């Protein structure tokens, strides 16, 4: 992920950069299947921004102090944040799809259609995971 983000704003910036990458990859038929990785990374970054905001960190904690934060697992990060959508929440199906992104990444072949929709689950206005966390935790 390059240089470690050290503030809420930097994590948000990284999330938005990944959203842009996702958009660019979706624009090219040959790179569409790779786009969903950027959607997952964007969600990871926005969760880390929200964690920084929630705990009032003035810099991203050192690995020795908070090893639990040095993960890429969306479910683990969500648990730390206290983000636990209920099935009735509008974000619920999109969060379910995003948490399966990690499993998809590890186990499955991704078609362009699947990749596009995973991006949609992350960035859909108001109810996508990125927007929901931004609205409710930032």
């Amino acid at each position, binding site marked *: 992920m390059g240089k470690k983000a050290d503030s809420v704003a930097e994590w948000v910036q990284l999330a938005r950069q990944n959203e842009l990458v996702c958009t660019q990859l979706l624009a090219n038929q040959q790179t569409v299947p790779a786009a969903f990785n950027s959607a997952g990374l964007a969600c990871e970054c926005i969760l880390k921004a929200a964690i920084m905001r929630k705990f009032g960190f003035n810099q991203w904690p050192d690995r020795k102090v908070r090893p639990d934060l040095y993960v890429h697992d969306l479910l683990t990060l969500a648990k730390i944040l206290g983000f636990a959508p209920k099935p009735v929440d509008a974000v*619920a199906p999109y969060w*379910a*799809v995003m948490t399966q992104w*990690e499993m998809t990444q*590890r*186990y499955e072949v991704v078609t362009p*259609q699947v990749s*596009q*929709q995973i991006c949609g689950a992350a960035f859909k206005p108001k109810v996508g995971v990125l927007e929901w966390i931004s609205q409710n935790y930032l």
Partner: protein
Amino acid sequence: MDIPELPVALKDAGVAFDRDLRRLGLRCDALTWAWDARKQTFFLFLVWAGFDRFGPVPIAEKIFAAYRGSALPEEIDPFIVNVVGVNGRLAKQVMSMDRGGGMVRLTPRGEGPHVFDLHITGSWIIHRERKPHSIIDVKKDWQRFQSRVDELAA
């Protein structure tokens, strides 16, 4: 590594989930429980031939809508329902394994931290077709399923 027994309540709920899905018009190609040793929890895997064509979002939206409309068993949190296509590695394992016994461990592709560590026992398979449904049947099923779920919310 200790793999727990599938609780009877989950087994029964899985059978009810399969029955309710059919009642709503969706015939999946396979349905099975899987144990994730990393997260220490059971997941329900729904193998569906329409996944690659229609994608993960519309079916997730409908499964949540059906759950909210009490048309799927309340014992199964829709967050643990994972829909996958018939051409993926997980589906191929499930379609080929012995239902009478034996266990498969699904090894992730590539390097990096393994977020999941999945195990499936043959006896956890709730339902499995001998071959995937044709795309014509899948389309019909999908339209019927969408209509019936939408009616729940109307």
